[in-house]
């Protein structure tokens, strides 16, 4: 079946057999491999995208249900030449190791800061508690986002 949706501000069309997840369609059909396939069970947040204004794990969303939706993936948040403030903060504080979880953290944290530009420590931890990082122990991620939250804008 044909599904029409908007991804990162562009109209896209996907041809899905029926059971594909949004993650599969983004990665394998639309050429957007930034969203990662780590658990495909909604537990780790590596595939986080913003779907119609809410952060979701795209592995648990049926692509066929996304007709008419607005989707933002990591590819739509900043670019290598012009990083989003969250991306810059993660880079500056050494919060990236293997990086497999990083796109999910970027999507979730960018959404958090959009809703609340000055989150406290507990709010950062809660907002990102659905994103698992196996490398950093979360310390550098927390320091980067705390620093960003303290910046006046």
């Amino acid at each position, binding site marked *: 079946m044909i599904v029409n949706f908007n991804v990162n501000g562009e109209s896209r069309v996907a041809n899905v057999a029926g059971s594909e997840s949004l993650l599969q369609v983004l990665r394998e059909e639309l050429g957007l491999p930034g969203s990662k396939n780590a658990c495909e069970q909604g537990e780790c947040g590596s595939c986080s995208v913003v779907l119609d204004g809410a952060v979701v794990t795209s592995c648990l969303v049926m692509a066929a249900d996304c007709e008419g939706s607005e989707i933002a993936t990591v590819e739509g948040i900043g670019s290598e030449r012009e990083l989003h403030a969250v991306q810059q903060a993660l880079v500056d504080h050494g919060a990236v190791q293997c990086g497999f979880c990083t796109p999910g953290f970027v999507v979730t944290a960018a959404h958090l800061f959009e809703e609340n530009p000055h989150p406290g420590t507990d709010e950062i931890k809660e907002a990102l508690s659905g994103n698992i990082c196996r490398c950093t122990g*979360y310390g550098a991620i927390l320091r980067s986002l705390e620093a960003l939250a303290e910046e006046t804008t």
Partner: protein
Amino acid sequence: MTTSPTTRTRIRGGVGESPQRPDAIPKVTGNFAYASDLHADGMLWAATLRSPYARARITKLDTAPALTVGGVVAVITQQDVPGRRGFGMHVPDQPVLADGECNYWGEPIAVVAASDLETAKRGVAAIVIEYEVLEPLTDMEEADAADSQTRRMKVRRGDSEATGAVVVEGYYEVGQQDQAPLGNEAGLAIPDGEGGVDLYAVSQWVHSDHWQIYPCLDLEPEQVRCHPVGMGGAFGSREDVSMHIHLCMLALRTGRPVKMSFDRAESFVAHVHRHPARMWYRHEADTDGKLVKVQARLILDGGAYESSSNAVIGNAGYFAVGPYLCDNVFVDAVAVKTNNPPAGAMRGFGGVQTAFGHEAQMDRLADELGIDRLEMRRRNALGHGDPMSSSGQIIEGSLPTAQLIDELATMPLPEPLASDDPRHLPGGTGLTTERGQVRRGVGYGVTIKNLAFSEGFDDYSDARIAISSVGVEVYTAAAEVGQGMVTIIQQLVRDVLQMEQVAVVWSDTSVIGSAGSTSASRQTQMTGGATYQCAVELRQQILDEFAGDDLSTEGVWRDGDLIATLAEVCSGGMCEHEIRYRHPETFPTDENSQGNAHPAFAAAAHRAVVDVDPELGLVRVVQLDTVQDVGKILNPVAAVGQIEGGTLQGVGMAVLEELVVDKGVIKNPNFTDYLLPTFLDAPHVEVRFVEEPERWGPLGAKGIGEPPTISAGPAVAAAIRDATGRDLHRVPILPQHIAGV
């Protein structure tokens, strides 16, 4: 007319700074290519038929029906292996595909290549297979009794009749931990059209893969090229070959690129895990708290194939006492072979298991003697010049165990629990626990790890450096799994050559020799050492050639004058150099495990503070303070990142993570049931370093990846014992253990 510069450009990003990783921006933007993102035109996807039994004989295997599924291109079984029938890091004891029998749940039997992954899975489902199910051997003590082992090790040192004034005995169990890197196994094999193949697959050591793969393919070494790829973590899980030979066979069979990308469930069965352990300890000490004698019996379950079990049990035996002096040590250690999932490398590698035992024993002795638990460790601390308690090896390098303990004692404790915010209480927003119910505990873990490979292994790293007028290129096959080694190499080479533009070129097995494994905390010292030494020698060659006294981005200097520009220097053709770097020689030990088995050691110390709801058994790990023996800090931010991350893996092992294996079957191969620490589980971690340079390696730096994972877990376990008064002899410590139900 050109003007010669008169001052050298000050370079940025050298040793001691924390420069930005070259892969940081690609990773935050989603542009970094991991193995699972690889694509080649016309590629096929492959899927694997795996054993549904822990032990079975295959009585019928008919792959022909798979080939009738539209889109299926090829099926391979063990009968199709052209060369050597098995593989393995140390001995090739594992068949490429099941050879008439299945020895563990999930063992690969056949692999199907098809136009897409779903079709490949349909092909797998179409294979006709029948089994005679056999009783699996899954209990490690039964395996030991049945003499089913891969290595039996005994340590005999000192006087077996020696006795101390106090004696404590304990039995300890360690559950099976999974590395659970966020990126699953993935790879792509591309036939070269001339009978050879290029493999791009997850690996901590491409040359080890290469040495295992080409004999199975019956090809010449140069016909197989293993390429480093982007990896989402490793922690030991990528030391062993998994899909590698299968991909190469299918690519050669079909003449097309073939890709595999495991999902989490398959990843859990396709890589080795940490060895579960059972340990019996008897410690004797004099009234001053000095260890007099340690006896231990250790069993580690290696599962169905050897993998690195024999090195793991070696570590367990050598480090059974921890970083402590003791003249009389008697250890019987065995790695058994069962029908459980194969166990192999994971961060800490044998020392993790025994650390839970020896640290619990040190607390028991301290309590028995009425000595402060940290002071007990201080009185026995092992250091430079001392003999290892197990092997008797004199520690010729640095080992500032006592300084770590002294520094840890100065670190401030967290404030007492004063918050009623549920986010700060055990059970969190589950609203299970009120502040008045909470008991706080404090515990310590002090541990030791060997650095680099041991027991006479010919351990080396090859590196090549080429200087051109546009910058420096460093060639190495060392695997960057996320730890930041590429940045460390850049920093070291910048420092030596005084040139800022340093690119690390990931090189396949045809371009350069082995860098050895990204494991055993060895790459900072080994490939860092290789690249540093290579840069030093190259610099000297250039200076000798031009009779200069300094080198920089500008060129060669003499007495403060630039005497040759870099372009002039590089036109002479001497701007490339390659070396093979080795650490001090080690030796196999004798039948009593006495001798010089290890090139270097590192210690780490943790203090854990936990809050426990004893009624419900809920734990909140509040804070971990740690001091680590790092030799010299090359990159402070990266070092803290390694230590924080390693610490949290230790925390996970202490209170959350366990692969539940029942009669050989993994019951929780997913992130819903295998619990990893989240942001809310992560304690605050304070990190301090003790810098006492190692005798070898770049500028005295030591590997730092593994030590924190070893000491963090025992500290957490001790803190929970302290809070609850319970013995808690098994990790992970679960709510039912604390609540006593």
